[in-house]
């Protein structure tokens, strides 16, 4: 009986998300994520609260200006924020657009998973009824 697992509000959001996503925003996010260096930058930022640009650039074999260009693209897509502290620039992950992308990728799972939970509850009730009827006949 898995029905109780979902709260009313998550159920309400399920189809809202299925139906009302923003494809243009998402196109930009997916285009931004299609580059392996940018994905590696995001993966590193996911480990740390914030990082300086030089610390971020360190493991990459590309030059600093190339890293800066990737950061511009990430920033334009809303995936990171940059803040200046004196001479250093700190880079942080900006989670909201990523959550949106993740929800979009999982929209059919969000649609079918609660339906299959209800299917299970329904047929398990039917199974109990069938067993009760069979027990009566067998008696």
């Amino acid at each position, binding site marked *: 009986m898995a*029905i109780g697992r979902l709260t*009313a509000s998550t*159920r*309400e959001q*399920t*189809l*809202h998300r*299925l*139906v009302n*996503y923003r*494809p243009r925003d*998402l*196109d930009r996010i*997916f*285009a931004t*994520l*299609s580059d392996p260096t940018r*994905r590696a930058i*995001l*993966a590193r930022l*996911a*480990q740390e*609260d914030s990082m300086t640009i030089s610390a971020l650039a360190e493991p990459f074999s590309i030059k600093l200006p190339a890293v800066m260009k990737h950061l511009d693209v990430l920033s334009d897509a809303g995936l990171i924020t940059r803040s200046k502290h004196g001479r250093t620039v700190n880079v942080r*992950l900006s*989670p909201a657009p*990523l*959550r949106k*992308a*993740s929800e*979009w*990728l999982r*929209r*059919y*799972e*969000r*649609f*079918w*998973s*609660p*339906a*299959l939970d*209800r*299917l*299970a*509850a*329904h*047929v*398990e009730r*039917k*199974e109990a009824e*069938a067993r009760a009827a069979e027990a009566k006949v067998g008696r």
Partner: protein
Amino acid sequence: MTSLTLVRRIAARPSIVFEAMTTAEGVAAWYGPDDLPVVSAEMDARVGGAFRVRFRTLDGRDHEACGEFLEVVPPRRIVMSWRWAVGGDPEESGRVSRIEIELAPIAEGTEVTFTHADLSSEASEKGHAAGWTGALDKLVRHLARAAATAEKTQ
């Protein structure tokens, strides 16, 4: 093209699960993403037969899916085409996808393998062309999780 597969182990025999998936009465008990009742259901579960299910969601909208039974093998396998006739997913508007259901008997009842295949989207097509969809999905989930944890601790 993308697909989704969900596996459930259910404590009911395959014939009962099969009936719940191939009759209007059965489908009315579980279709749709939330607990609002199905508005109407028609199931003609034979090869070439049509199905049509209409449901309302908590936001007050109506959605209708329809299609055709492509394979019907009681109580083991069902394949049907799937199309949104009303509402649903605008990304899939006018497209035909495919539902494949396998029912395997297990000791406690039935293992249901439910696949929604041939789902298409511009973003996923681009992704597949570049070969990164799986990696991206993983990364996005990881990042969303990491970000949610970071927000909680702030």
